[in-house]
């Protein structure tokens, strides 16, 4: 490159930046030293790209229309390219689009930025609707700085997998059209991972969908870590399998009463209450039928989950509880596509949009609801079952029903929070209720005393969710402050703080072996954290909107997560890969639950349906079909529409739990 040319560039650059006097000085200086060229040649002489880049600096840069022209040219070129390479080339469009927009905003061309954004947003709305909605509000350079999402986009590079030929096509185009602006953006923000061979089919570009940039690398790195997803050794299930479900097992269980490492997350009911309600009786009848034997055989054929040691000191379980668990495990029926479960549906009426959350105790006898007026109400379904058998006939005089037969309210009112209650869950034996609220506190209530026991303060923002560990004693909470915390019931300070999510942590769930918790977040990822170390051990990327619900399969191998759009994803914990997305719901999936053996997945949604998914058949099928390179979907077994009732919470083989809008009745 000519030194003269360089001089030209430098002068042009200075002028453009407003240093006109400096430019003049430099010019005159150069005129003086015209003969003696003091510049030494640098190695960028033979780098044409750099030349262009440098040239672009000296050009009149603040012309906003260039972005539009450049982008629309690139767009029409990409859309008119060969079908085989088209989808790969189109992947480039989205990052280029958002960076063009942010460049425009960053340079203060608000009007042009908006016009640009609106004219091309249709292309990307299908996949990136939420991101676009976020970015739409960014209108000034200061917003770019302030908004975390925009900042992370600016900082990081997008990884795009390209086949060799597509890459060459793109480069060729950019060079031939001398669109330095586009080239600059692509160079700056896209990281091509070129591979040789034919382009991949368009279906499996899940990774191309989410722009996470360098985040992807850390995710990949984190996902290399080893996790022990197996069940706890010497759990009650374990013992039951060894003894083959003989009746004598109960005596054995008594002998080993000191052992407390029971895994009761797998069973359907923790405790068969002494005051058996009609509801529970029905369950037991069903549980006692002949399919039990078939179930046992099947569980043996499936390769058993590996056993791991607990990393936490787990609470000791009382003999009575253990007894009842064992009893229940023996009675358990294998649910499958052939043996479908029964669904009992609890409906709240006249909530006036006040019901925020609800949950069912493990034995199905208690129902708790958290309300936006900061109250928690607990119903004993056994009592309602006795008193209100005729309640269904007389829907009109509901005022009578809510007052019990003794003139008392039919529910227990728990008051203490000072903001909307966002979650209320039962401890596994059903003797405690844990609630979290917008007042940033978590409260522990006793269902026996009907009183508040502890108030846990630690979060700085509303606590969205709180969940007991499968053994009780420990619990996890997650909050708007982007952290999840682990607590034990006897301490008012959190034991661990899990920080790492880029947005609100919306839901939390324990792994059956208690060593991990999973958190779903508004940053569209699900993370798995080691409880002992507090480190993130898995990042699951693939959702397109905020994750609202999580469920762990009872064998600890899989995890299901449901999002705001109605997509449910099944993840393999060890590989951090999505087995298959479950499409079917068309609104928020608010609750997910596995059946006792992990063969069925139930999902409840705002679209007023409960769906059952056959999980076993599909996972087997995927294995078979992986060879063919096909991705298949899990089979949706049954859909149970409700009467315009959004489904709030569910527990498999127990009740699916809902609220009904008061306008309906």
């Amino acid at each position, binding site marked *: 490159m000519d030194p003269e040319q360089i001089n030209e560039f430098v002068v042009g650059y200075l002028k453009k930046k407003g240093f006109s006097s400096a430019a003049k000085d430099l010019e005159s200086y150069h005129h003086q030293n015209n003969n003696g060229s003091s510049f030494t040649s640098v190695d960028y002489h033979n780098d044409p790209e750099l030349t262009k880049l440098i040239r672009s600096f000296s050009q009149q840069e603040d012309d906003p229309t260039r972005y539009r022209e450049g982008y629309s040219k690139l767009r029409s070129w990409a859309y008119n390219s060969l079908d085989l390479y088209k989808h790969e080339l189109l992947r480039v469009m989205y990052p280029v689009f958002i960076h063009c927009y942010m460049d425009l905003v960053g340079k203060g061309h608000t009007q042009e930025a908006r016009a640009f954004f609106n004219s091309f947003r249709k292309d990307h709305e299908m996949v990136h609707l939420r991101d676009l909605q*976020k970015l739409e509000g960014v209108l000034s350079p200061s917003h770019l700085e302030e908004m975390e999402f925009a900042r992370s986009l600016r900082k990081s590079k997008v990884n795009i997998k390209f086949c060799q030929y597509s890459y060459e096509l793109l480069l060729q185009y950019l060079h031939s059209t001398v669109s330095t602006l586009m080239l600059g953006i692509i160079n700056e923000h896209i990281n091509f991972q070129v591979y040789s061979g034919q382009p991949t089919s368009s279906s499996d570009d899940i990774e191309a969908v989410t722009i996470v940039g360098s985040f992807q690398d850390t995710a990949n790195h984190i996902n290399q870590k080893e996790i022990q997803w197996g069940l706890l050794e010497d759990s009650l299930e374990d013992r039951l399998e060894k003894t083959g479900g003989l009746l004598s097992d109960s005596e054995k269980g008594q002998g080993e009463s000191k052992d407390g490492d029971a895994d009761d997350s797998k069973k359907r009911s923790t405790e068969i209450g002494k005051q058996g309600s009609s509801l529970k009786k029905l369950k037991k009848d069903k549980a006692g039928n002949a399919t039990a034997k078939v179930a046992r055989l099947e569980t043996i054929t499936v390769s058993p989950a590996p056993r791991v040691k607990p990393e936490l000191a787990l609470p000791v379980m009382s003999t009575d509880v253990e007894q009842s668990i064992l009893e229940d495990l023996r009675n358990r029926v294998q649910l499958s596509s052939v043996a479908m479960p*029964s669904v009992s549906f609890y409906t709240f*009426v006249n909530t006036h949009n006040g019901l925020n959350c609800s949950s069912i105790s493990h034995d199905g006898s208690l129902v708790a609801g958290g309300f936006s007026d900061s109250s928690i109400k607990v119903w004993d379904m056994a009592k309602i079952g006795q008193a209100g058998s005729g309640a269904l006939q007389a829907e009109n005089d509901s005022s009578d029903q809510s007052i019990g037969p003794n003139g008392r309210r039919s529910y227990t009112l728990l008051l203490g929070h000072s903001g909307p209650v966002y979650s209320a869950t039962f401890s596994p034996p059903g003797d405690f209720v844990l609630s979290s609220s917008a007042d940033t506190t978590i409260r522990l209530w006793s269902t026996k005393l009907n009183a508040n026991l502890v108030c846990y303060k630690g979060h700085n923002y509303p606590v969205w969710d709180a969940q007991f560990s499968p053994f009780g004693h420990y619990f996890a909470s997650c909050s708007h402050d982007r952290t999840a915390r682990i607590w034990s019931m006897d301490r008012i300070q959190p034991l661990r703080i899990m920080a790492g999510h880029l947005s609100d942590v919306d839901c939390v769930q324990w792994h059956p072996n208690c060593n991990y918790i999973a958190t779903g977040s508004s940053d569209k990822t699900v993370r798995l954290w080691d409880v002992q170390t507090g480190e993130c051990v898995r990042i699951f990327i693939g959702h397109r909107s905020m994750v609202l619900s999580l469920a762990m399969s009872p064998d600890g191998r899989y995890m299901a997560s449901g999002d705001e759009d109605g997509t449910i994803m099944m993840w393999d914990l060890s590989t951090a890969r999505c087995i298959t997305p479950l499409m079917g719901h068309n609104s928020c999936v608010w609750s997910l639950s596995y059946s006792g053996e992990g063969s069925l997945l139930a999902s409840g949604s705002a679209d007023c349906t409960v769906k059952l998914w056959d999980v076993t058949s599909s996972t087997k099928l995927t294995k078979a079909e992986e060879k063919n390179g096909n991705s298949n979907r899990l089979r949706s077994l049954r859909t*149970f529409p409700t*009467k315009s009732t959004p489904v709030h919470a569910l527990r498999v083989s127990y009740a699916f739990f809902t609220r009904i809008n008061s306008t309906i009745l």
Partner: protein
Amino acid sequence: MVTKESIEVIAQSIGLSTLSPDVSAALAPDVEYRVREVMQEAIKCMRHARRTTLMAHDVDSALHFRNLEVSSSSLLLLFHTVDPDFDFFLYSLPLAPKVCGSRELLRTEIYTSSMTKMSSSRMLSKLLYQMHLLMHLFSHWLAIDGIQPSIPQNSPLQAISDLKRSEYKDDGLAARQVLSKDLQIYFDKVTEWALTQSGSTLFRQALASLEIDPGLHPLVPFFTSFIAEEIVKNMDNYPILLALMRLARSLLHNPHVHIEPYLHQLMPSIITCLIAKRLGRRSSDNHWDLRNFTASTVASTCKRFGHVYHNLLPRVTRSLLHTFLDPTKALPQHYGAIQGMVALGLNMVRFLVLPNLGPYLLLLLPEMGLEKQKEEAKRHGAWLVYGALMVAAGRCLYERLKTSETLLSPPTSSVWKTNGKLTSPRQSKRKASSDNLTHQPPLKKIAVGGIIQMSSTQMQMRGTTTVPQQSHTDADARHHNSPSTIAPKTSAAAGTDVDNYLFPLFEYFGESMLMFTPTHELSFFL
């Protein structure tokens, strides 16, 4: 979205009249950014409250997170100032949730309505606030062993169709096998009771359940064919026929059952029970009651499904009229036909029965007389038919008189004359009626004038009338007098041809028709 003009408006509303254009231009994008930010937080709150409707307190708590003291109502107020079409603005925000009419919102809307000139209908719809009922919780089975039971708590029709479709698809079984076991038992029991113990309370309860249970749709084809078969078999068994009719009626009344596709099977059986020659074997069997009952069933069916099956009503009436006009048919058949038409409505009677009344009565009267008809049962039947006809005609008359009171005068005069000679031979009456017909138009025209005359003459004739009655008639007269120009014309236009058949009624039935005239009209005769 937020323009600098709207910033200027807001500034003026808070008392900043001198805002430089630069400032407002700089503020506008920032305001929009902040509002969007707050709304995003609010939507998070909405999601965590498990709602799909954004409420004002969501915005409140979102503001609270940011330590802002602004209340959502002031924010909404801002929206209104920014954009009078407030909803549109909110819908353009991310996720576009519906905005619910909560109390805060309501307050703002009332407050802002003066500024934005909100339409009054929209205001009213917002004002209708929910009634406060106490909350309650109840439970039901959404599914039992994976099958959704058809109970009122579950969403009704879609569920059934879904279930059926999936089952047909899955195993392609024959229709009968689709029936669940409980439904099969239900069907067997109900049919058994219908044939054996139709009087029992058990059967009555079964009928009640047939009438309201939503899950019976799969049984409809079986019930229709059952009814059709058993009616043919048991034409001489009155209790069974009655039970079958009750069964059919219950089934037809069930709102959850789609019986339309089976109506063409069911209706002939029902019509049979209405106009069959013999229903029941013994003379003690009260087949008249059965016919009455069936007639009302037919009528209700036609009323309910008439709009779906356009030819249902015409077909039913055709068969009824056919029976009625056929002199070779037995009297019970005529009776059934008449009752059927009466149940179908007075218009049927007016257009189909009354025009044929004269000739028919000529046939009927001999049957009623002791001298002509020796058989006791047949004579009884004839009297029943006569009664039915009389009631039908009388009700027609009543309705007619109620709608057009002025028409009363001509027939009353004729009745007045012929009142005493009911039993006299008919020939003269035929003549009189034809007389009437010819004289009608002029009579009508003078009707208004005549009424006053009539009432006065009546009073003269009945000198014994008491004072209150007198005043009543006076009031009547005045009443007739005032709208004198309009009322007669319209009524005359409405039903001249029908009226032609109404007037002879008094000749056919005589004094007994008086029972059917509206009470205050009766004052003419007193």
